[in-house]
């Protein structure tokens, strides 16, 4: 029962995250969507670890790795945004298309 609730919450978070990642024009908002999807994944991992896998330590490690992925995604993502903004003075996905000019 608890696991179902947790996983349904995770599914909703992933859905919202996907919506955000697809719909947002701005890179920064797009990253919010990605983070939200990872948040859903994190929730699912915690749920499985605690309720279905008998607390095997690899589950916790996986959760930490998801967070590491978030940190890496954010650091590189923002660095890219800075680099793109320097070139184009905008942070919108459309501006990448014209970067080659």
């Amino acid at each position, binding site marked *: 029962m608890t696991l179902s609730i947790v996983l349904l919450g995770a599914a909703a978070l992933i859905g919202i995250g996907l919506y955000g990642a697809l719909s947002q024009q701005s890179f920064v908002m797009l990253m919010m969507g990605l983070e939200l999807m990872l948040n859903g994944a994190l929730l699912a991992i915690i749920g499985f670890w605690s309720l279905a896998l008998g607390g095997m330590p690899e589950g916790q490690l996986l959760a*930490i790795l998801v*967070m590491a992925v978030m940190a890496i995604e*954010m*650091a590189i993502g*923002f660095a890219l945004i800075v680099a793109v903004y320097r070139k184009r003075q905008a942070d919108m996905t459309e501006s990448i298309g014209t970067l080659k000019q």
Partner: protein
Amino acid sequence: MQTLIILLGWTVLAWLLVRATQPPADATAPQSAPFLGGGTTGTHAWQRYHFRPYTMTLVFIAFEMEMMFMYPWAVVFVSEGIKALAEMGMFLAILSVGILYGWREGVFRWE
């Protein structure tokens, strides 16, 4: 569960205290203008704020991930002994390279 309820309780209590002590805020137009020592400004202060040490924050969030590994490490440090010291030493040494590089590139000051 208890932890969560206590933390929530403190938040509610703090909120009640603030509600009880804070009269509603109000101001006339000249009173609400931002303080500039008598001076004026044309635009809102909210802006695309140029936060100067932005590269530092990126190095920081990458470096700070090491905390996630260090807390569990600290718990087993004594029982694992010298091996734990060596492994964490190596981990920190790897990350320190990044800090040294950042220092050389001057990210730890206002850009």
